């Protein structure tokens, strides 16, 4: 089965039709997906700024991470669940949307950026985490993450104009 055929099969399932045609569940899913931004991107924003050396410099990287981590986990889990359900309801349109394709690729890039950070410079965090301005690699990591999340949000919002 091709990806398109899989998406066509998804849209033909009763659960997809029910979601798509629901006058209550679909709006609630979309609303939750937007409110989830406050807890996901809204919190990672402050961690990335700290990593970039731009804001909240009085707090160490570990302190900031400890503060935002529970909300980031809750927020991004909420985004993934509601996002997956929204995709399930419009799988073929999502498949055909360049915005959606770009969003998926950018999500993978954001994940890779995070993994790279944790596997490299973050391993020696103790050596630099109290510096007001972190080393260049950490600053780049924070700035790239911030930029990626704003682009991901933008393509996500623009995608809605291609779905009817």
């Amino acid at each position, binding site marked *: 089965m091709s990806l398109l055929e899989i998406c066509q099969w998804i849209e033909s399932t009763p659960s997809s039709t029910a979601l798509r045609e629901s006058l209550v569940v679909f709006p609630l899913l979309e*609303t939750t997906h937007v*409110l989830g931004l*406050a807890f996901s*991107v*809204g*919190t990672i924003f402050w961690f990335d700024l700290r990593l970039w050396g731009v804001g909240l410099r009085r*707090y160490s990287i570990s302190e900031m991470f400890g*503060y935002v981590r529970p909300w980031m986990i809750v927020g991004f889990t909420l985004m993934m669940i509601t996002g997956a359900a929204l995709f399930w309801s419009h799988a073929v349109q999502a498949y055909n949307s360049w915005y959606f394709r770009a969003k998926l690729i950018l999500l993978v890039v954001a994940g890779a950026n995070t993994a790279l950070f944790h596997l490299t410079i973050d391993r020696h965090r103790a050596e630099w985490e109290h510096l007001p301005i972190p080393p260049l690699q950490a600053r780049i990591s924070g700035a790239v993450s911030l930029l990626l999340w704003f682009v991901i949000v933008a393509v996500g*919002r*623009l995608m809605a104009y291609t779905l009817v």
Partner: protein
Amino acid sequence: MVPDVVRHFIERIGTWAYGLSIAQWIRGSEWGVPILSVTHVFGLILLLGSVFMIALRCFGLALRRDPVSAVIRALSPATLGGLFLMTASGSLIFASGAGRYVDSYPFQLKMMAYSTAVVTQGTVYVMALRDDDENRLLSPRWMTMGGLAFLLWLSVATLGRFIAFFE
């Protein structure tokens, strides 16, 4: 639930705004409203993200080494910047398609919630400017104000999304 005076006020502003040349220009352009909507969501991240961090501090869950008032002042560029982005882009989206919004019940409720939230946020900011800056981890008045501000902005965002779905 929406008083007549509010509905009439929105209708008057809508009639006036719809005729503005900038509103006509946005209506006629293919990318006007989508770009404004993206700006609106960017503003939401700054505003809700900072109000949420402030609420976390009010409940002693983040940035504990600073008094609440200092946290509010430190995050204020994001709070005010987000509020400005949201208000500016939202006003332009409203002006460009006023006919669609003036009769929308969720939009009318959103404007009431928005006004309440702006007054609350303004009160929070003035309280932060006048605070003695002594670091108490928890205080009832900051917990009330911080929690209230966050809930109000969440309800504004919820009602905003409802405009697309409900009459």
